[in-house]
């Protein structure tokens, strides 16, 4: 419960960065933090006390594993996050090439 809440605070730190920072790299960093937080949140939801990693072993009981489904979904989500981050970085680099700055206030459309 406290862990979930801390995780959402981390999410909000990222959200704050995305919404309020005036620098393209800072915005990307904020986005990355949001992605970390949401991945961690989902994995936290699947943790089980005294559980073990969801890999079968010959001499172990089957049913005391942690929930493997959130892990599978978060694997997907990490890759999606990587794709988005790389795409956004490449856009930011092209913008830098055009304007010579990462500062939003000097780029006309991104104001406001």
């Amino acid at each position, binding site marked *: 419960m406290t862990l979930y809440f801390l995780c959402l605070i981390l999410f909000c730190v990222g959200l704050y960065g995305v919404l309020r920072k005036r620098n393209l790299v800072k915005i990307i960093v904020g986005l990355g933090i949001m992605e970390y937080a949401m991945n961690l949140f989902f994995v936290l939801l699947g943790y089980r006390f005294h559980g073990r*990693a969801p*890999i079968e072993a010959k001499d172990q009981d089957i049913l005391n594993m942690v929930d493997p489904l959130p892990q599978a979904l978060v694997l997907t989500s990490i*890759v999606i996050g990587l794709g988005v981050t*790389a795409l956004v970085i*490449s856009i930011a680099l092209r913008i830098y*090439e055009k304007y010579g700055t990462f500062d939003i206030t000097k780029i006309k459309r991104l104001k406001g």
Partner: protein
Amino acid sequence: MIDNPKTGMTLIVKTITRLTVGLIMLFGIYIILHGHVSPGGGFAGGVIVALSFVHLMLAFGKDTAIARISKNMASNLESIGAMMFLFIALLGFLGGSFFLNVFAKGSPFDLFSAGTIPLSNIAIGIKVGVGLFAIFLALVVLERSK
């Protein structure tokens, strides 16, 4: 290293890289192949393979890396990897359903087991490895050509 692309980094870095880059790539391939019996899988292994190329490029400059795999070739290989995965999915129709695991499952804990899963891992590994390398190459080429 950005100022002088021909030479790359210092001799120490180059020597270490020469020793380790093969090992890193081998480790990536190991992770891809053992995805169904141990942690890891196509994505993690693919990223490690991509990192081995990136490692090479950072140490020796981009020409050395491009000599091994060019951007067009990377792009084509990626499409082939994606097609392979789709093809594995379509193989399921042999058994009657999209994405059905049609092959024999074999015995658990073996390397050759789990039907189509290792094949999918290989397809994803190829795709991710060359795809991410293509991204990196495109970004570096952009920086150079300014």
